[in-house]
């Protein structure tokens, strides 16, 4: 973190890593990479490297947490101590506890929870390396992992951030843009239902800027949704080939 006021957008209108304002970072997704989990996914988005795993549906432990009419989703978002510049203590921070909650609430609307009463699923998210917008990449990966686990879902959940730096509205903030920029808006979307399941913001935006930022983030979600589908297809086409 530097104190000097770096320009986040250069004269050509390009960002620190050479992206255009409305450009996503390179994204790589892999599905079904952990053998013990029912479903799993790995995502790289820029320098973000995040693993998501889904266990269940299984009997709820402790039992008093089980619900008679639906399943319970538990979610843990956790950052590895080496995932950031200065070592992060492995015990969950207040930020991680809040993010675990909002990520869970971004995934719940898509799951047919009433199909599995008295059970629970665990969604574990490990951030191995963080470079801004990790909650969005985590949601993107977790929803793919849930699909891989065969959890009945209405839709995938695709997430992307948008924000404002140097008076420009930009897509998919990386760490420096998040820290030095003037607003950050993470959004998660169920693309076929037009349902926004995560919306947060910090920074300062006028009503018009906010509207623009949200619609840019939603465009990003649609692009990421296409990649999620592709990643799932790639996985299951290869499974089919092995069986044949």
């Amino acid at each position, binding site marked *: 973190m530097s104190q000097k006021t770096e320009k986040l957008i250069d004269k050509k209108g390009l960002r620190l890593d050479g992206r255009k304002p409305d450009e996503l970072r390179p994204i790589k997704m892999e599905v079904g990479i952990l053998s013990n989990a029912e479903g799993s996914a790995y995502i790289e988005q820029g320098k973000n490297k995040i693993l998501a795993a889904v266990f269940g549906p299984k009997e709820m432990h402790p039992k008093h947490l089980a619900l008679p009419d639906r399943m319970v989703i538990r979610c843990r978002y956790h950052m590895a101590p080496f995932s950031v510049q200065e070592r992060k203590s492995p015990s969950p921070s207040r930020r991680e506890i809040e993010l*675990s*909650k*909002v990520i869970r609430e971004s995934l719940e609307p898509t799951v047919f929870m009433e199909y599995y009463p008295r059970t629970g699923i665990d969604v574990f998210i490990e951030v191995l390396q963080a470079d801004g917008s990790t909650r969005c990449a985590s949601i993107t990966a977790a929803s793919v992992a849930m699909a891989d686990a065969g959890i009945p879902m209405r839709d995938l959940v695709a997430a992307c951030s948008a924000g404002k730096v140097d008076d420009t509205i930009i897509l998919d903030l990386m760490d420096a843009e998040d820290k030095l920029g003037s607003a950050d808006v993470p959004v998660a979307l169920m693309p076929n239902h*037009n349902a926004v399941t995560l919306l947060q913001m*910090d920074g*300062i935006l006028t009503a018009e800027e906010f509207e623009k930022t949200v619609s840019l983030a939603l465009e990003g979600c649609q692009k990421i949704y296409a990649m999620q589908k592709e990643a799932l297809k790639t996985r299951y086409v290869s499974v089919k080939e092995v069986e044949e």
Partner: protein
Amino acid sequence: MSSVITRVKQKQIAQAIAKGKRLDGRDLADYREIKIEQGIIERAEGSARILLGKTEVLVGTKIELGEPFPDTPNEGVLTVNAELVPLASSTFEPGPPDENSIELARIVDRGIRESKAIDTEKLCIEPGKKVFVIFVDVYVLNHDGNLIDASALAAVAALLNTKMPNYEIKEGEVKLKPGYTPLPMRKRPITVTFAKISDKLVVDAWLEEEQVMDARLSMAIDDDGNICAIQKGGSGYFTVQEILDAAKMAREKSEEIRKKLKW
């Protein structure tokens, strides 16, 4: 954060709201009566108690000397904590803060921090070494819904009421002097929370409405009508149109509520 109400009651609430009515007679965009009292805890540097209908929140602020964060050496430090005190509801348990109280504290914190409500540079005593640290402790005393708006309002009211100790630097040591100056405040952010019930947006949900809601959306608005923090909660979703409608209504409501704050 829920206690049990009957399905009949849940249905009544949802059906009334579908018709644009509420069981307590309010319109969908009406707040309950808001009462603000400031300076009621003498030992605290600042304090305020908010009554939002039957919801009651007390906020006390304390100021101590401390060190700045390395990335902001010229700025004082703001720390917000929230306690869901067990006497406020049968669903609040003693013990370390759970995800609900952490989320509440972080929403209140974000509204104040992101709106730059406090001129934190004026809290710097010696750059990189000594600054004032402001502790904002949110104490929920009675839970009847919409803790977010009540807590955010109480926190801002308490900050407006906060006095900073005078100090002098003698032989490199910071010494507190008698007398106080008001905390340097720039903005009065107001947080407006919407509950989505029967596909309608309802403002200031009370406890039983919160148990029927699909999701909630909180927006902090500064004095200029800018949005400075947002948090969606609950296991439902919002459409884009609902979000834009909420942003518009939040601006109107925040202006109304801000008038009640003495500054």
